[in-house]
């Protein structure tokens, strides 16, 4: 099991798995090649790097830098043709119920939208997703089956 921390990007080949813990408003993005059983996962925290107040940041932190970084390694290092890559995503919840305007709006749904826009721009189909709602998720991607397993405290386990 390879652990993907906040704002990190990691890759795995069969039979390894990629796991990230406690996704709230963050989005776990997996880009994979099902024949080669190779996958990359990013734990995206924010929608766009233009929001950053710093000059350096991990590429996995923002949707607009994480997806290109995932693709670059999948195509250049692992030699997977872009046209054969697929994506699964999970997360983007809203943990706090509030009527007050948050400074960054609904960050969960913005993250999901930003990740989908990036994937769409690069012509990567999102074959499955488990996003939104108001609960935390721990997700694990199995390179062998290309299944994304999702654990939530109150909802239990699901597989997409």
């Amino acid at each position, binding site marked *: 099991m390879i652990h993907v921390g*906040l704002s990190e990007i990691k890759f795995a080949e069969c039979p390894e798995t990629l796991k990230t813990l*406690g*996704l709230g408003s963050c989005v776990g993005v997996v880009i994979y090649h099902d024949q080669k059983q190779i996958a990359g996962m990013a734990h995206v925290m924010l929608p766009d790097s233009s929001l950053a107040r710093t000059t350096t940041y991990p590429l996995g932190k923002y949707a607009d830098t994480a997806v290109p970084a995932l693709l670059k390694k999948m195509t250049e290092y692992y030699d997977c043709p872009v046209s054969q890559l697929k994506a699964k995503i999970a997360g983007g919840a809203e943990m*706090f119920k509030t009527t007050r305007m948050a400074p960054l709006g609904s960050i969960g749904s913005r993250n999901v939208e930003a990740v989908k826009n990036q994937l769409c721009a690069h012509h990567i189909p999102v074959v499955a997703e488990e996003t939104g709602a108001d609960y935390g*998720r721990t997700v694990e991607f199995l390179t062998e089956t290309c299944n994304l397993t999702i654990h939530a*405290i109150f909802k239990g386990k699901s597989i997409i």
Partner: protein
Amino acid sequence: MHNLNELRTVHLDLLKESGNIGAAHAASSLSVLLNKPIDMRIPSVHVMPIAGLIDADAEKHVAASYIQVDGGLRGFFFMMFTVDQANTLIAELVPGSNVVDDAMGKSAFCEISNILCGSYLSALSAFLGVPLTQSPPIYAVDMAGAILSEGLVELSLYDESALLIDAVLFDRQKGNRLNGEFLFLPFPDSLDVIFSIAEGKYSK
């Protein structure tokens, strides 16, 4: 704006002292509310990578209340207890209730955080001589990592690390440490406010 990595021991000591003043007041308020002596200490002020802070107990099942601080300085409070401890905490206020699916329990938990935060801030405000306001608490019960990462989203735009003023609560009668955290996370630009005010105060 301060770079968090440039903070020296003297800065951390100053933050710890301001935290101690706030915590002492907050503990008195909580003692009155729960009708038993509660001590609160600031064991540490540290700069921590946000990723490490969130990953440490990412899947722990907690109840958390989140309060924004505005006015003379900006930041926010987290009060976070494991669900079992949170139930113990509110038991004296609303017997038989819980923080998971009972509105009274959740409300009691939020009210405790509200009072703790209010007394902490009024002491800090007097010490620094700046007006401070707090938002009403918002509440969540779920995985610690999921809750914290959402709360830390705005802070993470400024730095990959966060300054953490971490208070620990003690129940004096039972002599045990309540397994809960009371975190104050100021924004990096607000640290300048604390330091310049404190320096001005002591140079007179």
